[in-house]
């Protein structure tokens, strides 16, 4: 299923690469020093291996970012900004209940991503399956495959995420 949201592309900016590398505590100058990077085979600041995650910033429909005018489910005056509503067991099951967690993530690298690139992506659903967990009740797994290309149309990264929804909060280790 194509679901690239309203924003079709990710501008790969040196500043964003720097902030991403800082968040990982990675002092490698290939991520932070354009002069150093210019003298490497990449010619420009290089994106670290998990950098394509930033495409969420450009995803119009992303639910894990506060959106203007929509109630945010994190805390403000109260512990959640989610509108109060009665949740029966059936409703909880229907909505997926519990908590969504990231179970697996896989990347295949086809070509380097460097500052100055503009990436586009296409997302499709992979497999989905269910399993009874030991502690979290029914576990619902879903696979999502995202194909990233650069401005020349070259495939750069294939990302495959597996997420799991649990009926109850759990420590990990069941997946």
């Amino acid at each position, binding site marked *: 299923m194509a679901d690239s949201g309203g924003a079709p592309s990710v501008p790969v900016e040196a500043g*964003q690469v720097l*902030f*991403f590398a*800082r*968040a*990982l*505590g*990675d002092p*490698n100058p*290939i991520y932070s020093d354009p002069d150093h990077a210019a003298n*490497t*085979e*990449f010619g420009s600041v*290089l994106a*670290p*291996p*998990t950098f394509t*995650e*930033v495409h*969420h*910033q450009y995803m119009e429909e*992303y639910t*894990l*970012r*506060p959106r203007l005018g929509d109630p945010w*489910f*994190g*805390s403000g005056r109260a*512990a*959640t900004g*989610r509108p109060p509503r009665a949740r029966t067991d059936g409703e909880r099951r229907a909505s997926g209940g519990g*908590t969504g*967690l*990231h*179970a*697996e*993530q*896989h*990347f*295949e*690298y086809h070509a*380097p991503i460097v500052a100055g690139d503009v990436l586009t992506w296409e997302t499709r659903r992979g497999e989905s399956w269910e399993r009874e967990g030991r502690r979290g009740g029914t576990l619902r797994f879903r696979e999502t495959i995202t194909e990233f290309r650069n401005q020349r149309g070259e495939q750069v990264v294939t990302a*495959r995420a597996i997420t799991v929804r649990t009926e*109850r*909060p759990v*420590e*990990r*280790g069941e*997946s």
Partner: protein
Amino acid sequence: MVLRASELTVGDSRDEVVVDNLTRTQIVQYAGASGDFNPLHTDDLYAREVAGYPGVFAHGMLGMGLLGKALTSWVGDGRLTSFGVRFRAQIWPGDTLTARLSVSALRTDEGVPYADITAVVVNQDGAEVIAGNATARLDP
């Protein structure tokens, strides 16, 4: 630095402490950089009172990014051809995490040497929080 196939043996390994005493601020930093603002990771009140966890915990992808840092500092920049992980346990504020890398296979494909690497992250209690694999292109 780039690894050379001629200098590498199956079983060669490397440990790297990728974070010492993980701070909530670093988790916030990762949220801001990645764009994943799930309050489970940055909002202790929400994590405890709404989601039912003991408190905030790190994004799985922060852990994978830390493991990626250890991999690239060993195999060199732009050398990974694949990298995949399973998130096995939560990473909590205060954790000290060590990436453990070891060469599981060396092979050649169309004349190009590659190393398959087992890559895991363990916490200060020795618990494996991330289990993964990567493949890197080597110099001859």
